């Protein structure tokens, strides 16, 4: 197997004494946008949290060849940028300060006193998410789409080799869904491994280089979108059939009927 940036061997996660994730193995390389899909309750969020080391797991999980379990909290935070589902900012902080929190793992704990490299990383993230004009606005006053961009910029600002986003486009209109995934795709092209949990198989097919299909805590499929989201897996795992096509060299999948 080729050396991946993030590899798992027989990864298991138990919650309340029951295995929610069972024997998951993969090797995910850099410069990849990976979609993690599966029916409700398949364990997507749990697997994502386990990948980032936020929940304990059994088996072997390594990043860059280092066991994730052996990392300190701070080193782990530098390797993995994590965007939870339904991300919120609890106080009306200015956008720039929220984005700057992405530099927290690098020791930049105070947004008012960023070092030059930290300030530059924040600026890069702000520009990537097109937030320059909103820099001083309180984040709580922004629209849903703008808030998502702020959350995303906060994750980008970590400049971690692995980025994990849980349903980053779930509550967005189509324009912002495409914007946000395009942004994550560019981050992947820039050298990162980006893993995105999503329910939207169409967007997964459109943007992902690779798709992991999870069913009942086990990896059912692992491959390029056309294969992992082929008619067989869709019927088996998702109990649906889909309209299939292609555009710009990308597979097009539109869920069509329950089977």
């Amino acid at each position, binding site marked *: 197997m080729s050396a991946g940036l993030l590899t798992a061997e027989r990864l298991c996660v138990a919650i309340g004494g029951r295995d929610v994730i069972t024997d998951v193995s993969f090797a995910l390389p850099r410069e990849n946008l990976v979609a993690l899909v599966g029916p409700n309750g398949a364990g997507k969020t749990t697997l994502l949290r386990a990948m980032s080391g936020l929940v304990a797991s059994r088996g072997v999980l390594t990043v860059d060849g280092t066991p994730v379990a052996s990392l300190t909290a701070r080193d782990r935070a530098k390797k993995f940028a994590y965007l939870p589902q339904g991300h919120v900012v609890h106080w009306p902080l200015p956008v720039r*300060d929220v984005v700057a929190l992405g530099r927290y*793992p690098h020791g930049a704990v105070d*947004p*008012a006193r960023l070092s030059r490299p930290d300030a*530059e990383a*924040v600026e890069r993230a702000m*520009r990537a998410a097109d937030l320059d004009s909103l820099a001083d606005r309180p984040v709580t006053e922004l629209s849903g789409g703008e808030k998502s961009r702020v959350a995303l910029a906060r994750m980008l600002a970590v400049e971690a080799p692995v980025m994990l986003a849980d349903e980053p486009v779930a509550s967005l209109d189509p324009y912002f869904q495409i914007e946000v995934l395009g942004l994550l795709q560019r981050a992947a092209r820039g050298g990162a491994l980006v893993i995105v949990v999503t329910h939207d198989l169409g967007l997964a097919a459109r943007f992902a280089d690779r798709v992991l299909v999870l069913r009942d805590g086990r990896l059912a499929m692992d491959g390029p979108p056309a294969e992992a989201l082929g008619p067989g897996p869709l019927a088996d795992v998702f109990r649906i059939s889909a309209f299939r096509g292609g555009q710009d060299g990308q597979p097009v999948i539109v869920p069509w009927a329950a089977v």
Partner: protein
Amino acid sequence: MKATEAVRTAGVTALVARAVGRAPVLLLGGLVVLLFLLSLGIGPVRLSPDVVATALFGGGSEEQRIIVQEIRLPRAVLAVAVGGVLGLSGAALQGLLRNPLAAPELFGAPQAAALGAVLVIATGLADVLSFALPLAAIVAAFVSVFVLLVIAGRNAGLLLLILAGLALSSLAGAGTALTMNLAPNPFAALEISFWLLGSLEDRSIRHVAMALPFILAGGAILLSQRHAFRALSLGEETAESLGVDVSRLRLAVILGVALGVGGSVAVSGTIGFIGLVGPHLARPLVGWDPARLLVPSALVGAALLTAADIAVRLLPSTNSVRVGVLTALIGVPFFLYLIVRERRALSGGVG
């Protein structure tokens, strides 16, 4: 080129923000010093500022020295320390729970500390061991805040916190009432009940020595966590992904609040609502950043309690009004105002 420009602009903005950002702190610090000096001059014998200053540093008549150094100085020091740590505790709890209605007094911490202290007073242990009083208050405050946070869980809503706080303070109140009920003689009960009203009157340097180390330790613990509060603005999961040990942070806050509130209650009785009001008055001056809010909240708390303690000396009444009664009279309407302001979040249920 453009990137460098943007960074430079951001740098300049940050510098300006820093200079402007310090102004409220300096202003509040100045206010606390002013009130502190005023507090040394006001009482049955009014002393002018220059007399206060001379007496403070060992000049003036012996009478003036005794009034300033032995009678009023401990009281003024305690007002600043107790008010400060209460304001700081309120800001820290609000930062931890990401909730503007968090405060030690709403969570039953002072009431629990009072119960601990009252038990020690009623059993006569306080007369034997002077440190038993603050220790009992601190342990009781620790237990109450710990239990509250256990009930609250990871993402508690406003309603859950307030209800749990109400239950805990009622329980502590009932325990205190029982202790008074079973008091050996009416004088002991009277002494306890007056002490419960909260006052800084007739405190000596011995009281300062008893409370100040705990208050300072609590304050230092809370301040040391300030940056974690900022990361916590993004929720516990994100904060953890940024490298914050949230469980340790919770424990640090519980410990800091318990030390501060317990140490305070041990010498001043229950003085309420400074912890709730402090952060709210500080926010218009310094903004919402929970890290930058801590010191200004402490200063506002110190100024509030010192001002209230001066006010009770000025109020014309035969029996001196206790400062704890005054802060509650001012604080409760403010609390009601906050409830009205947060009405939407409250009626939204526990979520």
